[in-house]
C-alpha cells in the first residue's frame, strides 16, 4: 500500500490515545470491599495461577465465587493464567492467594494496563487494519480514515476491558467476509470461548455460512464446506474445553457460571426494552422468573428472525455486516440480563459499516458512548471521555463529511420512503427530519452531560439523569434499526421503540431503585491534551 505510513501513524495515534486514557483512574479504584472490574481481572489471575484447573469454577475455601468468581469461558481463564505467569515473574505479591485481594499499586496498575494494551496490539488492531484494507470500492484515503475512526471509537477505549474478545470477533468477521471461511469460524469460536456474550453475534455467522453452503449446492461442494466448518467448530470447542470434559459436573458447573439465569431481568439502568417498559409495568414483579426468561427469549428470537432468514437466503458480506448489527441490537434490546457494556457488542459491527452509512453509524457510536456515561462517571473518567468523544466526532465528521451525506440514498432509506410515498405522496422531508434529530440529540447529550456533572440530582429522584441517558439511547436507536433490513421487516419494532423511548422521565425515575449516579466526581489530571 502506498500510504502505509499514514496507516502507521493512525495506528500509533490509536495506541497513544489508549495509553493516555489508561493513565486515568480505573473501575473500583480504592473502593473496598468489592473494588471493581479491575480487581475482578486481578482476582482471576490469582485464582487461575494458584488453584488446579478443576477448582476454577467451583466454590471452595480458596475460591469464593461471591467475590468476583470466574464467570467467563475457559479461554479467558487461560489468558488470565498467562498474565499470571508474567505477574509471578515481576512481583509474586500481585497474585498471592488470599493476601493479594484488593491489591493496588502504581506498578500493578501499569502491569494491568500493559496486558490490555498488548492484547489490543496483537489482536484487535491488526484486525481493524486488515478489515479496512479489505474494504472494497473505496479509495486508500477513505480506508485510512475508516481505520482512524474505528480505532478512535471512545466507548471501547474507555471501557478498556473487554477488548480481547471483541478483537477476535473482528477477525471472525474478516475471515468470513474475505472468503476464508474456516479461519473466520475458528476465530469466532475462540471469541465465543473468550466471552459468552459473543453469542450475540453467533446467529448471523451461522446463517451466513449456512447460506453460503446452500448457495454452493447442498449435495456437492456445499456439503463439503459444511462438514469442514462443523469440524472446525467442534475441534476448536473441544480444544478449549478439554480440561473440563473429564467430568460431567465440571462442564455443567462451568455452564452454570457462564449463564447466570438466576440474576434479574436487567441490572441498574440499561437502555433496553425491559428497563423502559418497567416504567409502566413492573415486569419484574408481575411475571414469575421463568416466564420472564421465556418471554425475553421469544421476543429476541422473533426480532432477529427476519434478518437472519434474509441472510440465509441471500448471503453477501455486506448483508452479513448489517445483520450482525441488527442481531446484536435485538439481543441488547430484548434479551435477558443485559449489561450496559453490552452495547459495545453492538457498536463493533456498527464500526464495520461505518464507511457505508457514516451518518447513522457516527450517530449511533456517539450515543452508545454517551449511554455509558454513568458508568464512566463512577470511575472518574469524565475528562478522558469528553476528550476522546470530541476527537472521535471530529475525526468522523471530517473524514466522512457526514453532514453532506444525508440524502435518502445515502441513508439507505430509499425503498422505505418510496413505499411510504405510495400512501403519502408528500413524504419527502425524511432526511431533513433525521438531520434535525441528530442535532437535537447531540445537543441533548451535551446538556445532559453538563447537568450530570454540575447539578446534584433532585433528592427525590436520584436517578433522573441516568434514566434520561438510557432513554436517550433507546430513542436514538430506531433510525438505525429502520434502515438496517428494509422497511418490511422492521416496521413493528420501530413503533415499539418509539413508544418506549419517550416516556415522561420524572415519572420514570420514581420507579427505578438503584442509585448509580455519583456526584462526587473528580477530574483526572494527567489527561489534558486536546487531540487537535
Amino acid at each position, binding site marked *: 500500500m502506498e500510504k502505509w*505510513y499514514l496507516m502507521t501513524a493512525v495506528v*500509533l495515534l490509536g495506541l497513544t490515545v489508549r495509553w493516555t486514557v489508561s493513565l486515568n483512574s480505573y473501575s473500583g479504584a480504592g473502593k473496598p470491599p468489592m473494588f471493581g472490574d479491575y480487581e475482578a481481572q486481578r482476582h482471576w489471575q490469582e485464582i487461575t495461577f494458584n488453584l488446579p484447573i478443576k477448582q476454577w469454577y467451583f466454590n471452595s475455601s480458596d475460591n469464593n465465587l461471591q467475590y468476583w468468581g470466574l464467570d467467563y469461558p475457559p479461554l479467558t481463564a487461560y489468558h488470565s493464567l498467562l498474565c499470571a505467569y508474567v505477574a509471578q515473574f515481576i512481583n509474586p505479591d500481585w497474585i498471592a492467594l488470599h493476601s493479594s485481594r484488593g491489591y493496588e499499586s502504581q506498578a500493578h496498575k501499569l502491569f494491568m494496563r500493559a496486558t490490555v494494551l498488548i492484547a489490543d496490539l496483537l489482536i484487535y488492531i491488526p484486525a481493524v487494519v486488515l478489515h479496512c484494507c479489505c474494504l472494497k470500492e473505496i479509495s486508500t484515503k477513505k480506508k485510512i480514515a475508516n481505520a482512524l475512526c474505528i480505532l478512535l471509537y471512545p466507548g471501547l477505549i474507555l471501557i478498556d476491558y473487554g477488548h480481547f474478545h471483541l478483537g477476535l470477533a473482528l477477525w471472525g468477521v474478516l475471515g468470513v467476509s474475505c472468503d476464508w471461511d474456516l479461519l473466520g469460524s475458528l476465530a469466532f469460536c475462540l471469541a465465543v470461548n473468550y466471552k459468552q456474550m459473543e453469542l450475540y453475534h453467533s446467529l448471523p455467522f451461522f446463517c451466513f455460512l449456512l447460506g453460503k453452503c446452500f448457495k454452493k449446492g447442498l449435495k456437492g461442494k456445499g456439503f463439503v464446506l459444511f462438514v469442514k466448518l462443523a469440524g472446525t467448530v467442534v475441534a476448536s470447542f473441544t480444544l478449549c474445553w478439554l480440561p473440563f470434559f473429564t467430568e460431567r459436573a465440571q462442564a455443567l458447573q462451568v455452564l452454570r457460571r457462564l449463564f447466570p439465569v438466576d440474576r434479574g431481568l436487567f441490572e441498574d439502568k440499561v437502555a433496553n426494552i425491559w428497563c423502559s417498559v418497567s416504567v409502566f409495568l413492573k415486569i419484574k414483579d408481575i411475571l414469575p422468573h421463568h416466564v420472564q426468561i421465556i418471554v425475553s427469549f421469544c421476543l429476541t428470537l422473533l426480532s432477529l428472525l427476519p434478518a437472519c432468514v434474509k441472510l440465509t437466503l441471500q448471503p453477501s458480506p455486506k448483508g452479513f455486516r448489517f445483520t450482525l448489527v441488527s442481531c446484536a441490537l435485538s439481543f441488547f434490546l430484548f434479551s435477558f440480563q443485559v449489561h450496559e457494556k453490552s452495547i459495545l457488542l453492538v457498536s463493533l459491527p456498527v464500526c464495520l459499516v461505518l464507511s457505508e452509512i457514516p451518518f447513522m453509524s457516527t450517530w449511533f457510536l456517539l450515543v452508545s458512548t454517551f449511554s455509558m456515561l454513568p458508568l464512566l462517571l463512577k470511575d472518574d473518567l469524565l475528562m478522558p471521555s469528553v476528550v476522546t468523544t470530541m476527537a472521535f466526532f471530529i475525526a468522523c465528521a471530517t473524514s466522512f463529511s457526514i453532514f453532506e451525506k444525508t440524502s435518502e440514498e445515502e441513508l439507505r432509506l430509499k425503498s422505505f420512503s418510496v413505499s411510504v410515498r405510495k400512501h403519502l405522496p408528500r413524504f419527502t422531508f425524511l432526511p431533513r427530519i433525521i438531520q434535525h434529530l441528530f442535532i437535537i440529540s447531540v445537543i441533548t447529550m451535551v446538556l445532559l452531560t453538563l447537568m450530570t456533572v454540575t447539578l446534584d440530582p433532585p433528592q427525590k429522584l436520584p436517578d433522573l439523569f441516568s434514566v434520561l441517558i438510557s432513554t436517550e439511547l433507546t430513542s436514538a436507536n430506531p433510525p438505525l434499526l429502520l434502515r438496517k433490513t428494509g422497511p418490511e421487516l422492521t416496521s413493528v419494532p420501530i413503533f415499539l421503540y418509539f413508544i418506549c423511548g419517550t416516556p415522561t422521565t420524572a415519572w420514570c425515575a420514581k420507579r427505578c431503585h438503584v442509585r448509580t449516579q455519583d456526584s462526587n466526581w473528580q477530574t483526572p*489530571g494527567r489527561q489534558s491534551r486536546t487531540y487537535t
Partner: protein
Amino acid sequence: MCTNFEVHRNWLAITHSLPISQWYYEATSEWTLDYPPFFAWFEYALSHVAKYFDQEMLNVHNLNYSSSRTLLFQRFSVIFTDALFVYAVHECCKCVDGKKACKELTEKPKFILSVLLLWNFGLLIVDHIHFQYNGFLFGLMLLSIARLFQKRHMEGAFLFAVLLHFKHIYLYVAPAYGIYLLRSYCFTANKPDGSIRWNSFSFVRLISLGLTVFLVSALSLGPFLALNQLPQVFSRLFPFKRGLCHAYWAPNFWAVYNALDKVLSVIGLQLKLLDPKKIPKASMTSGLVQQFQHTVLPSVTPLVTLICTLIAILPSIFCLWFKPQGPRGFLRCLILCALSSFMFGWHVHEKAILLAILPMSLLSVGKAGDASIFLILSTTGHYSLFPLLFTAPELPIKILLMLLFTIYSISSLKTLFRKEKPLFNWMETFYLLGLGPLEVFCEFVFPFTSWKLKYPFIPLLLTSVYCAVGITYAWFKLYVSVFTDPPVGKTKKQ
C-alpha cells in the same frame, strides 16, 4: 510531579499575592521568578483566573501544593494559550509557496508543515506532560517570522521585542533579527550584484524600529527601573552561578567534553595515574543543578562559552549581511544562531533544541537538502528529550509519540521530495536507526544489569553523547549548505 509545574505554581502565587516591588526579591521557594517582566505579568493575569479554581495554589508559602483543580487549571491554561501557537502556524503555512501542484491534501507542503508544527513531539511533551508555556512563546516567534516573510517588518520586530521580554532565552536568536532588519529593511535597495548600496539607508525606518523596541522595553523594564531594581532583575535572569550543564546534559559540545573528561578520569583511575582522593565526588547526573569540576580537562568558565558561542554565530551573521537571501536566508541564520548557542552556551537546557527544530520545520518543506537536515536534527533532538520523562507510565507515551512524529515526518517528507535524490545517505540512515537499540539498551536492558548501581549515569551519558553527534552533524551540514548554496533567493524574490 515535575518541578516545572511547581515553578509555575509558585510564580502564580508570587505575582498574585505580592506587590510588584517584591516579585524579583521573593525567595521562599527555591524556584524564584527568573523570567522577564512580561512573563510575570502573564502569570499575574492567569492568577486572576486561577483564583476561581483553587485559592490555595496562590499562597506563596504553600510549597509543592497540588490538587486536582490546580492541575486542571494549569493544564488548561497551557492548552488555551496554545491557541496563539495554532494561529501562528496558520500564518506560517500561508508563507509556504505551494508551487507544487498536488491534488491530494495530505501531500501538500502546507498540510505537512502544519502537522510537523502542531504535532511537534518536543513541544507536546515539554508543554503538556512536563509543563511549560513554550507553545505560546513559540507562537509569538513563528508569528514574527511569518510577519517578516510577509514583509510586515515593523510588526515582526515588535512581536520579537515582546517575545524577548517574555522569555530571554530568545536573545540567542536576536542577532539574526537585528542584522536582518538592518540589512534588508533599513537599506531599501541593493546593487545589481547583491552587495549593499550604502546610500539607500533609510533613517526613518531605523528610528521607527528603534522606537518600537525601546517602547516595548520601557513598558517591561520601566517599573523596575523606577523602583531601582534593575540589577536584581538581571541577576535573577542570568544566573551564572549554575553549572556548565543542566541536570541532564543537553546534547551539545560540552556534553562530549564532559563525557571525555569522565572517561579519561575513569581510565586514569584504572591506570593509577590519578589520585582518587583528589577527585570530586559530585556526579553531574544526580538530578540537581550543581557545579561540576572537570578532573582531567581544563574547567570551562562562562566567558569561554560566551566566546565560543560568538565565534560560532559570527559566520552565519556575516553570511546574512554579505549574501542576503531574503526571508529564507534570515530563517537559516536564525536557526544557525539557535543551534550554535545550543552547542556552546552556558547551562543549556535540552529543551532549548526546540528553538532550532521549530523554525527548521518551515525550511524543511521547501527543499530536499533542508528536509534531510531537519529530519536528523528533529529526530536526535527529540530523542534527547527522553530523559525529561522518566517514570514508567510515561514510557509508552513518549515512545509512541516519538514514533508517531518521526515516522510521519520522515515518510511525508520523503513523499514530498520523491523525485529528488534520497534524503539520507547510508551513514545517516545507520545513525538514525541506531537510536532504536540505544533506547532499548537504556530503558530495558540497563536497569537489569549490575552496572545500574555502580554507574547510574551511563544511560544519560550515552543518550546525550549519541545525540550530540547527530546535532553537531546537522549543525555542520546546515552551515555548509548556507555557504555553498547559490543565491537563488534573489531570483525567487524579485
